[in-house]
């Protein structure tokens, strides 16, 4: 009987070549974990190249997951378990690991050629580099090939099953039922019987290996606590799925088709792929010829009375900018989703960043204000999508919805919401008492939105465009005074959205104190954990969802704190925005490594600013939380 550890939470990292199938292995492990009632958060970390040169450190693809009792809000700072398929994966992951972590190493891959490619002069298993870790070497490649031998696959095809072999081993360690994975393999490879059977054989072989070999003495078994989640029905969800379903839900709530036009770009493409499968929910998609065509087609759909949505990442959003100005000028609803990534230019396509906030708020020619909102967790993308459409339709304006590479790919459990709790999305109605002329620009005095009139309506025909419009009739106007009024009106329209959004609330802590840690977007999980673990009543966590306009009470709320600390995955863009809009002087906490914040680095940064704290006492990493 092997040693059994009971843990509140555990962080597992799978790493290998980008062709090793670690993303699939991770997502399958999580799917089975979810069914056992654990809370979790996952973060895939993969290279920009589809099949980067095998064995190199820059080609390492990893999948990190944090599993256990709630609240799990990040994929974890420091892995407790690493599965390394080759030396490069070990080299890249080692600095992140927990002291004493369990390393499961595919020893077949530790040959001189691979060691050299990873930049190792000597085998790290032999030169003492792994002292202090619990190392389990297994000939994963060879054992897997043995297992799939009866299926007479080529060596390379047979080798592809090794992720399922390793998954089988992991499943034994975590005492999981193989049923859901077997079911998935049977469904996925229903038409490829040999592949199906080989993968099943690999899975079972890995599982038996862990159980029966003499190594099983060395491999610990983990018993991870169940989460204390609110009662209800749960599912796993990643940000792209939640966003796709949220957009479809918004279409349903508005009772209009949702037309999604997009051009492939990392990390935004998964949204296109998800929506492509939601046609039974009134969603139409088209892959456009370029970013500009995508936003333009979405504007065309909105002009036609559908909810037009486009999506991209920073560089693509830059291309869409002129057309966004047209939607502002023509006063048409439009959703622009930006899954942010590292930049400038092509930058770090597969790595996460929050550096397009300036672009969203300020990045257009002329005085062209636009509402901006941000999702703060994978599941929160659902509600944020609905809210974006609600604002767009109510005020007849384009809306920018910010997510990022982390949210697009990260997954968590989600208590499935009750759709009857969502109010219908209503467009501004035409005032029946007004005459029939120039009704297209008779705006609602409260929302300042105009009626959404689309072709097909007899007698309401109108012409609209990007030229300045007369404030009363909507006809072309070059009048000096009129342009002043229209520019003011566009600003007022976005500003008045503050009257419709909720007041800013505090996530953790009280309304007064020494430090408010103010974040936005995907840093929510890390800040939440940091402030919770710090447990200092002088520190509060405030997380912004509405970035333009800001909630009305925000200035007053922040004035209750001596210092405002703003962690962001950029060089301080929210800090600038708060300085600009509220006249306060926050302390920026920038991070632009392409990786999410670690909880520990946030705790250390908060402590450094807290009066009366011994800043010398730095936390290294949060230890795996033993009960």
């Amino acid at each position, binding site marked *: 009987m092997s040693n059994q550890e009971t843990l509140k939470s555990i962080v597992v990292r799978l790493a290998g070549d980008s062709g090793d199938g670690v993303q699939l292995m991770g997502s399958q492990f999580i*799917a089975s974990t*979810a*069914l056992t*009632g654990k809370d979790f958060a996952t973060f895939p970390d993969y290279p920009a190249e589809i099949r980067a040169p095998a064995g190199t450190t820059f080609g390492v693809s990893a999948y990190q997951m944090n599993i256990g009792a709630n609240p799990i809000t990040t994929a974890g700072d420091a892995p407790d378990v690493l599965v390394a398929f080759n030396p490069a994966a070990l080299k890249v992951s080692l600095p992140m690991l927990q002291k004493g972590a369990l390393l499961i190493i595919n020893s077949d891959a530790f040959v001189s050629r691979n060691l050299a490619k990873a930049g190792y002069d000597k085998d790290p298993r032999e030169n003492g580099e792994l002292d202090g870790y619990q190392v389990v070497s297994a000939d994963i490649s060879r054992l897997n090939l043995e297992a799939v031998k009866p299926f007479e696959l080529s060596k390379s095809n047979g080798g592809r099953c090794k992720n399922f072999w390793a998954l089988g081993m992991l499943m034994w360690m975590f005492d999981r039922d193989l049923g*859901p994975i077997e079911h998935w393999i049977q469904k996925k490879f229903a038409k490829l019987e040999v592949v199906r059977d080989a993968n099943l054989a690999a899975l079972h072989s890995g599982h038996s290996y862990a159980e029966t070999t003499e190594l099983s003495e060395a491999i610990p078994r983990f018993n991870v606590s169940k*989460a204390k*989640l*609110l*009662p*209800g029905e749960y*599912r*796993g969800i990643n940000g792209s799925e939640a966003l796709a379903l949220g957009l*479809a*839900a918004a279409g*349903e709530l508005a009772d209009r*088709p949702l*037309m999604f*036009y997009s051009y492939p770009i990392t990390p935004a493409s998964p949204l296109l792929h998800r929506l492509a499968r*939601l*046609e*039974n*929910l*009134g969603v*139409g998609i*088209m892959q*456009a*010829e*370029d970013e*500009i*065509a995508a936003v*333009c*087609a*979405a*504007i*065309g*759909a909105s*002009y*036609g*009375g*559908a909810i*037009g949505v486009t999506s991209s990442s920073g560089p693509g959003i830059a291309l869409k900018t002129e*057309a966004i100005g047209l939607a502002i000028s*023509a006063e048409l609803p439009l959703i622009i989703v930006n899954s942010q990534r590292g930049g400038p230019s092509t930058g770090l396509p597969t790595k996460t960043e929050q550096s397009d906030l300036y672009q969203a708020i300020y990045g257009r020619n002329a005085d062209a204000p636009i509402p901006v909102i941000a999702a703060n967790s994978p599941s929160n993308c659902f509600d944020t999508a609905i809210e974006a459409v609600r604002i767009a339709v109510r005020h007849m304006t384009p809306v920018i919805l910010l997510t990022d590479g982390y949210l697009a790919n990260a997954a968590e459990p989600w*208590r*499935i919401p*009750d*759709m009857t709790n969502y109010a219908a999305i209503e467009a501004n109605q035409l005032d029946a008492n007004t005459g029939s002329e120039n009704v297209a620009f008779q705006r609602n005095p409260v929302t300042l939105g105009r009626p959404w009139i689309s*072709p*097909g*309506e*007899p*007698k*309401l*025909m109108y*012409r609209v*465009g*990007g*030229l300045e419009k007369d404030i009363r009739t909507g*006809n*072309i106007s070059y009048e000096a005074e009129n342009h002043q009024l229209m520019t003011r009106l566009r600003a007022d329209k976005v500003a008045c959205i503050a009257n419709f959004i909720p007041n800013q609330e505090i996530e953790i802590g009280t309304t007064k104190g020494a430090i408010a840690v103010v974040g936005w977007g995907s840093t929510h999980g890390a800040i939440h954990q940091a402030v919770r673990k710090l447990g200092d009543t002088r520190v509060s966590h405030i997380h912004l969802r509405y970035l333009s306009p800001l909630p009305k009470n925000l200035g007053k709320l922040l004035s209750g704190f001596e210092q405002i600390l703003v962690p962001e995955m950029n060089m301080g863009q929210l800090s600038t925005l708060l300085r600009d809009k509220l006249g306060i002087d926050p302390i920026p906490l920038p991070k632009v490594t392409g990786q999410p914040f670690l909880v520990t680095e946030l705790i250390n940064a908060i402590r450094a600013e807290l009066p009366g704290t011994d800043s010398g006492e730095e936390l290294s990493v949060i230890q795996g939380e033993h009960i």
Partner: protein
Amino acid sequence: MNPKPELMAKDFSSPEEIRWCPGCGDYAILKTMTQTLAKVGAKPEETVFVSGIGCASRFPYYMETYGFHTIHGRAPAIATGLKLARPELDVWVVTGDGDGLSIGGNHLLHALRRNIGLNILLFNNEIYGLTKGQYSPTSRSGTRSPSSPDGSIDAPISPGQFALGAGARFFARSIDTDKIGLGEVLQQAQAFNGAAFTEIFQNCIVYNQDVFADFTDRKTAEDRQLRLQHGEPMLFGKEKRKGLRFNSETFELEVVKATENPDQVLLHDEKNKIIAQLLLDLSAPMALGVIYKNPADSFEHSWYAARAQGLERTSSVAEALHNTDTWTV
């Protein structure tokens, strides 16, 4: 039921004051357009004109229909999004040589290859009018303009060859002031299912006066214009004495005396892409009318054919949220 009173050409003219230069060829096109829409019994509320930027792109303001004056080069993309969401609408795109073939070349290419149901009119005056006379992508080499004082050095693009190369299924050509020829072409374009691309030679009286005079001048028109009709012989000139035949040695079309070689004169087959390409290479005579028309399923037809329910919902989000592995706490 009382039949609806028929609409007249004037019913398609909006009250907006027209702001083209006096004498601009656009006036004639506008007039023929309103007449054509009246003639085909178009419904103004189901007709949309989408344009980009340039002199031609003011067109939607002057039509008593729905209209969207958008941004430079992007009208085909905006119209594509509209047509896909609202396939029942009659969507026209009005563009120019700069708007359609320079800044917007990519969108035009893709609208044509998709064969989406748009009626695309390219007003070709071989010059940038609205920005005051710079050479355009259709300007002939050597065109002197403010941005090419010594004459332009780039070769012009042929809108027709561009269209056929992109996979267009309909290409027609006409002249701004040719009421009858343009009217016929517009009617055929309107009736075509798919992307119908029409090049209209449009005289810019300010920056490129008479650039097409070699074949539009009334005195020589008969001799310089080949007016194509599907199934009819390719005859032109005084009393139709000239004709076109295919030279199998040079692989070109050549002019012959029709009276002496009646059976050598080609019949126009609008489905023949090779002949269409040869016709587009001619400048004397200039081929006019429907040069190529070979229908195929339109993009929106194929798109909707793949989804029986159209854009209706057959399921609910509530159902979709649960339609996966779930667990209960």
